[in-house]
Each structure stands twice: as structure tokens, then as C-alpha cells.
């Protein structure tokens, strides 16, 4: 199967119309990209789409491997123990930092070395079309006026989104029940059937409901408005000082040579700028934010400090 799929990928390389960049040959093939997400899940689809565009540019084949278990801890441990030759990477999301801080596994996020950051994922607050709320400020006002009646939902316990809602309660000074779920699908049902006032999630999770007009966006938790949704006000504009950054990138074992890291940065920059890929990630409202190794390292470090502070503030960790 794997061999067959490699052949299929090589075939794709021929068919692709992307201009092949002139560059030194990448030293390893196939490159294994490891994710903690299950097949068809967020990071899995991200990797599979990315590799589709990377293959013709880098001239090597890619294999996506789903290593589940331990909320990402198993996948991180596997990559950390692999050879630092550019042959194995882990698809990073905030989850691996959360898990490291909350479950303290044998190998934490510090065990990996970030090599690139590719996208930032905007987090949005949404509700069903029938809901009386038009903006996030409406929903917060409702929560203020009816203490103990507000019901908010996040996809997973101890996720970045869950923490964001807890912070929202603090910043806005309201009481609300925060229900956690077993993934975005469960959450969506409870938003659609009116059990919840609103849910929090990424655009791609709610895309189909959004297109069908079944859900309404109340606010976005970024610094600036999204180019795709110019009318959608940020939380900050609505008087709530809350921003949430979610990212997608790659990290490898420690000790990857500089030339490989540099090669990744140029390749990712080229691929992200290509029209074919733009069309795909544009649909998911992913914001390209390519960072090379040095930047990615600093970004990840800053992110981890932020999350640690938030968790401490909420009393979840000491």
C-alpha cells in the first residue's frame, strides 16, 4: 500500500503544472510527516494538502503517519527520537504545547525543534442562525444580565479554545457554563440545536454550516479583521480584550543542519505563494504566516510562556 501510494505520488509530481524551483536536491526521501490527529482530522488534512504541493517542488516523496495516543505525546516522542537528518517532522499545533504543560509526558514540546511555522488559524465565535445574538458583545451582555444562564461550548477539554472561553469569562467579568465536547462535530450539534449560546472554533470546522447560512459569526479572536470576512468585528473592537493565536507548522528532532532548515523555509515560502495552494487554504481561511527556523523557535517559546501564564492564572497548573 505504502509503496503503491509512493508511486501514485510520483505520478502526481509529473502531472503538476507548478514551476519547479531550481534548488539543491533534498537529501532524504521519503520524508515522514507525523501527526497526532486521526486520518481526516485537522492536522492530517493539512499535511496531506501540503505534501501534494511540496512533492513537485522538493522532488522527494512524502508519507503522512498518524501516531495517535496521549493527546499528541506519542507522536512528539516518536519524532524526538528520530534521526535529525530532515527525514521526520511533526505537524505542530498548540495542542503539543498544551499537552506538554498539562500531562507532563516523558518528552515535551522542548524535546522538538521548530523548523517552520506555516499558517495562523483564526479562532471565531459562532452561533446558530436562529439565535438572537448578532455580535459577541450581545452574547456577553446576555450573560451579564442573566447570571448562571449563559452556556458556551468548546470542542475539547483542556484545549486552547476551552482556555480561551475561561479567559473570556474573566475578562468580561461574567458567569457562564462552559461545556466541553468530544470534537468539533459534537459541539456543532449543540450549537445548532440551541443547547449552547455559542461555540468557539476554526473557520474550516464550521465552513459547511457557514456556507449554508446555518450559523452566524459573532466575532473573531485576532488582532486584525479577517480578509475573507471584512464585516466581522474582532473581540477587541467589541470591547473584549481577548486574542487567541493558533498555528500550524513543522518541528523536527534537535540537531537538524542549518542548510536543511533554510531549504524548508524557501520551499514553504514558495509553496504558500503558489496560486494552486492559495486556492485551497484560502477556502479554510488559513492566514499564511511563514516563519523560518529562528523566528519559529522564538514564536514557539513565546507561545509556550503565554500558555503557561494563562494556565497558571486559571489555577490549572502550579
Amino acid at each position, binding site marked *: *500500500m*505504502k509503496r503503491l*501510494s509512493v508511486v501514485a505520488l510520483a505520478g502526481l509530481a509529473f502531472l503538476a503544472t507548478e514551476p519547479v524551483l531550481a534548488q539543491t536536491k533534498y537529501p532524504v526521501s521519503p520524508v515522514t510527516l507525523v501527526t497526532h490527529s486521526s486520518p481526516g482530522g485537522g492536522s492530517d488534512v493539512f499535511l496531506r494538502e501540503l505534501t501534494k504541493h511540496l512533492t513537485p517542488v522538493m522532488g522527494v516523496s512524502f508519507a503522512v503517519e498518524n501516531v495517535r495516543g496521549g493527546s499528541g505525546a506519542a507522536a512528539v516522542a516518536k519524532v524526538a527520537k528520530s534521526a535529525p537528518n530532515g527525514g521526520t517532522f511533526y505537524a505542530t499545533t498548540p495542542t503539543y504545547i498544551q499537552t506538554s504543560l498539562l500531562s507532563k509526558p516523558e518528552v515535551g514540546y522542548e524535546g522538538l525543534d521548530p523548523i517552520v511555522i506555516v499558517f495562523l488559524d483564526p479562532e471565531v465565535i459562532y452561533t446558530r442562525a436562529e439565535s438572537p445574538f448578532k455580535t459577541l458583545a450581545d452574547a456577553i451582555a446576555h450573560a451579564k444580565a442573566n447570571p448562571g444562564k449563559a452556556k458556551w461550548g468548546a470542542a475539547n477539554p*483542556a484545549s486552547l479554545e476551552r482556555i480561551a472561553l*475561561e479567559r473570556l469569562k474573566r475578562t468580561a467579568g461574567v458567569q457562564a457554563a462552559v461545556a466541553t465536547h468530544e470534537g468539533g462535530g459534537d459541539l456543532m450539534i449543540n450549537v445548532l440545536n440551541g443547547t449552547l449560546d455559542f461555540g468557539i472554533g476554526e473557520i474550516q470546522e464550521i465552513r459547511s454550516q457557514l456556507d449554508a447560512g446555518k450559523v452566524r459569526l459573532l466575532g473573531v479572536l485576532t488582532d486584525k479583521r479577517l480578509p475573507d470576512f471584512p464585516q466581522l468585528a474582532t473581540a477587541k473592537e467589541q470591547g473584549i480584550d481577548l486574542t487567541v493565536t493558533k498555528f500550524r507548522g513543522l518541528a523536527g528532532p534537535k540537531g537538524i543542519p542549518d542548510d536543511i532548515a533554510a531549504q524548508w523555509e524557501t520551499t514553504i515560502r514558495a509553496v504558500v505563494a503558489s496560486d494552486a495552494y492559495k486556492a485551497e487554504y484560502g477556502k479554510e481561511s488559513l492566514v499564511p504566516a511563514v516563519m523560518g527556523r529562528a523566528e519559529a523557535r522564538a514564536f514557539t517559546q513565546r507561545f509556550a510562556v503565554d500558555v503557561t501564564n494563562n494556565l497558571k492564572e486559571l489555577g*490549572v497548573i502550579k
Partner: protein
Amino acid sequence: MTLSKDAVLGLIALALAGAYYAGATQIQASLLSDAVGADGVPRVLAWGMAAVGAGLLLRGLVWRRKTEEDDETLPLRHHVRALALLGMLIAYLVLTPVLGYPVTVALLLGSVSWFAGARPGTALAATALLGAGFFWVMFTWALGIPMPAGFF
């Protein structure tokens, strides 16, 4: 006096309830938790298990009800052989990362067939080798599962 099986099972249930309850008290509290708490349902399950254990113990001691299971008289040999088979499976578990999948699965096929009564000889060896090849092709090649390669 030998205990009836109901009574023994009751004691096991009580021990299990106790150990599980002790485990439930170890669950760390979290400010993200709800009113029921992460340990709420486990505590209820432990009490339920204790009640079932007490019921079984009572039934076994007071009524001394004879059950079908009490009539089951398995020779000691039965348990010893089961234990030996379990030992082979544990050996597989331990040896796979060292020797690699193809070798250990061949060893497992060979040793279990022999232990289950196949006569040692070329037929057995051939089955083990061909079987291992078959499993290897099926899992590594067809399914593309990265089975442990061992020291190779």
C-alpha cells in the same frame, strides 16, 4: 471449609472496589472541573462494585448456593498450560522490538503450534516460516504498517 466461587468472586469484587476507590482519590483536582468532578463517577462505580461484592459474598457464605462453576473441576494442568501459552505471548511482546517482527512472529507460530500438539519436524518449521512470510507481506507490504524491524 472451602469457599464457594460466589464468595471468592465477592472478595475479588471488594478488593477491586477498594483499589479502584483508592485510585479515584488520587485523581488531581482541577479548576476546569465541574460539580461532579473527575472523581465523581469513579467513586460511584467503586461503591457499586462494593455493593455487588457484598451481595456475592453474602450469597456465597450465607446461602452457600452451589453453582455450575463450583462443579467445574479443571485439572491443574489446564491452568499451567494456559500460563505457559501466556508466557509465549509475553515473550513475543518482549522480543519483537529486539528481534524484529518477521523473526518473532515465526518463533511465535512455531512454538505455539508445537505446544498445541503439532509434531516437530519439517512440516512445522515450514508452516512457521511460510506463515511468518505471509503475515509479513500482509502487514508490512500490503497494509504498509511499520512493523518493528528489530536490530536489522
